[in-house]
């Protein structure tokens, strides 16, 4: 049986309202990822929707300072290495909001 690191997996990005002009209005985007890692999932997302690239450092795939990324409801804080992800994992983008 193949492990997640040897096959293509599917992850879901959840796109917040503030970034949806860059995702054709889509709030959820399922993408296929080979060599599963957070960095690869970002790469696939911005290949699909280039407008989202400005919210990441495209060298390291760290989000800009006004964005937090959550991997299955846990905040991602370490972007230094290939953060592993699994089939059907969820990646949520949460931008800073100030509507009051």
């Amino acid at each position: 049986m193949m492990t997640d690191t040897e096959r293509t997996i599917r992850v879901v990005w959840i796109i917040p309202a503030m970034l949806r002009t860059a995702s054709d209005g889509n709030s959820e985007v399922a993408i296929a990822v080979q060599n599963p890692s957070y960095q690869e999932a970002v790469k696939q997302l911005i290949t699909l929707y280039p407008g989202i690239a400005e919210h990441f450092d495209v060298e390291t795939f760290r989000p800009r300072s006004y964005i937090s990324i959550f991997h299955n409801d846990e905040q991602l804080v370490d972007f230094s290495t290939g953060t592993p992800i699994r089939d059907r994992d969820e990646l949520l983008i949460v931008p800073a909001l100030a509507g009051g």
Partner: protein
Amino acid sequence: MKATLLNSLDMEPSNPMNPLPELTPEEHAIYEWQMWVRNFGELGQRKLKNAAVLISRCGGVGGVVALQLAAAGIGKMFIAHAGNVKPSDLNRQLLMTYDWIGKPRSESIKRRLKELNPRIDLTVIDQNINEENAEPLVAQVDLVVDCAPLFQERFAMNRQCVAQKKPLVECAMYEMEAQITSIFPGQTPCLQCLYPEIPANWKRQFPVFGAVSGTIASMAAMEALKIIGQFGQPLYGKLLRCDFNSMSFKTLRIQRRANCACCGHL
């Protein structure tokens, strides 16, 4: 962590230097139904009566926070909100009234809150939060609820709450989404742990239904009541993210940033 957080508010009735006020018969009659809430009771109500809260801006979110806290019997409230009532306030700012368009928001806020709760010790400042007024305002209260529409105001408030180690309920919305966390400086992530820099692309005007701002506001009021009343589990170290399109609500775990420019030294 819980015990430290609770004790820090120094509202224990056993403290002879700071005895909790008794409730009047009228207050007993008004708050009877909420005093039936388990782990709150009359002691919790006396803690609310003894507490002072600052609300930064009193618009779609802050207005409903103020209304809920006034209804619940907070003893003392400071509200900072500048400007005159505009027609575009009226889809969500429930403390503003049609007859007050063009007149100071601060007067409308005072009138509406006093109609609901004439007992409240209320100070409405005709200013928004800035680096100068945040320090003396935060110094006078036990807890802050931040509902400002600009990050400059939110960051100034976060800095002061961290400096004075005061709990801060941080709540905000945009379009059909809203998020809320409760901050206890030095023990939970602060606003700058979550977002180290002010976003350059935030616009002062944002899409909003009053039902969205009012819902996150009621959640923020509940956070304030739990922290002051010392019951339940506040959203310490957690960010509740609400999507009102899909009615999806996620409780996300957030982390302190060791090198946070605001609270990293604590």
